């Protein structure tokens, strides 16, 4: 599927109903379309321009086939035009086959490193349909269920502080605890005088701590 150079870049955002995918009319009857049927609700629309599938109001897919890659640089112009025209997140799905493999690294460099878009390789339209299904599922899920987004539950600072103070040369568990109980915070510990330190850990170590913190 090659895109004609004069294909318009569609303006305005497309409203994608929840759980649906809007596909470019040109994909009607394709293997991807057939395999997506029954898994997700696919609606075809005219005039999507450069975009092949809209997954949501924010994300869309541009498909680069083996034929596109072999045919030359037309697909690059298409990607650049998309990037310049859209604020939408673009996911580029590229057919990486034995024939198109030689082009893959250059395409990846362009898409990910230069255009800052997402690139996912598939072997054929069958794999593409499976991937699109998962992308749609992920999109429609609650944000909190994404394991890579989940914030670590805020941990208590105490164990960390205990560890930090033990990084001071000459300070082990016992002295670390005494110092923390006496001074309360790293900031206050750092501003303690040798005299104040001596009261807690003794002369030699007090000197050692002071020189570590202040020089």
């Amino acid at each position, binding site marked *: 599927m090659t895109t004609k150079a004069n294909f318009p870049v569609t303006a305005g955002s497309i409203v994608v109903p929840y759980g649906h995918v809007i596909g470019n009319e040109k994909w009607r009857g394709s293997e991807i379309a057939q395999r997506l049927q029954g898994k997700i609700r696919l609606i075809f629309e005219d005039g999507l321009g450069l975009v092949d599938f809209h997954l949501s109001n924010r994300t869309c897919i541009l498909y680069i086939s083996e034929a596109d890659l072999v045919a030359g640089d037309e697909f690059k112009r298409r990607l650049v035009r998309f990037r310049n025209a859209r604020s939408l997140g673009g996911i580029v799905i590229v057919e990486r086959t034995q024939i198109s493999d030689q082009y893959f690294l250059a395409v990846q460099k362009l898409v990910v490193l230069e255009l800052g878009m997402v*690139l996912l390789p598939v072997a054929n339209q069958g794999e593409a349909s499976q991937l699109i299904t998962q992308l749609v599922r992920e999109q429609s899920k609650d944000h909190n269920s994404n*394991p890579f987004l989940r914030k670590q539950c805020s941990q208590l600072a105490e164990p960390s502080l205990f560890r930090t103070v033990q990084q001071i040369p000459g300070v082990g568990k016992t002295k670390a605890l005494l110092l923390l109980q006496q001074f309360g915070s790293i900031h206050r510990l750092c501003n303690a005088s040798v005299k104040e330190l001596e009261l807690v850990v003794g002369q030699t170590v007090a000197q050692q701590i002071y020189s570590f913190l*202040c020089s």
Partner: protein
Amino acid sequence: AALFSRDPLEIKPSLCILVDSREISSGAEVISSLKAVHGVKVQVCSLSSSDYVVSNRMAVERKLQSELLNSVNRNKVTQRIQRLQSMFERICVIVEKDRIKTGETSRFFQRTQYYDSVLSALVQAGVRILFSSCQEETASLLKDLALVEQRKNAAICVPTEVEGRKREALNFYLSIPNLGYLAALNMCHYFGSVKKMANSFPFVSYSSPLDIATGAQVSPQKAEEIYRYLHYGFDVQMLPENLGAKGRSNAAARS
């Protein structure tokens, strides 16, 4: 003509990439290729959180394709990425094809639904993904990433080897929660002493000549987080028993 074709502006300091020490055994060719083919300065250190650090803000995790094909490694992978999310502004995962073992002609890659769901979740979480077919290619991708980061003024510029007092200070900074190796290293070179660091403000201000965001080369949010940690009031009751049990009883005995 070749003599004059080089633009003086193009001569940039050589690229530097930090490599976790565990990669010496699992990614030997990545390291040798970075050095020999790409002329990158490679510093091996115990990063523990990520496999590579290519700039002030970007960590790179190298994963074999087979590790992402089924849920056997699910916990390990998600924990690593979650940890990186809390430490670095940008994360990239390089998915590398498994090496063909001797005797095998080629490895058949059976794409799974789980694999697609992991990729989808990574995309959704804003994690960059790059694909590589071998260790040499991974090295080349790492160099490309470091170059892009250099263009965006985020390159690793400080000396990566530290000794003596500086090494001790580095270990001290590394114990600050969710602080990346490079942020700690930057602090180590920027602040003349730990005390100066502790007395600095999160951002540039009139009341303090030094600030954490500049010193560590981190985002304002991260600088604020570090500042809060330095000023956090320790409460012994909140220390888990198993950590301070011995120390606590000693401390009680003395007081």
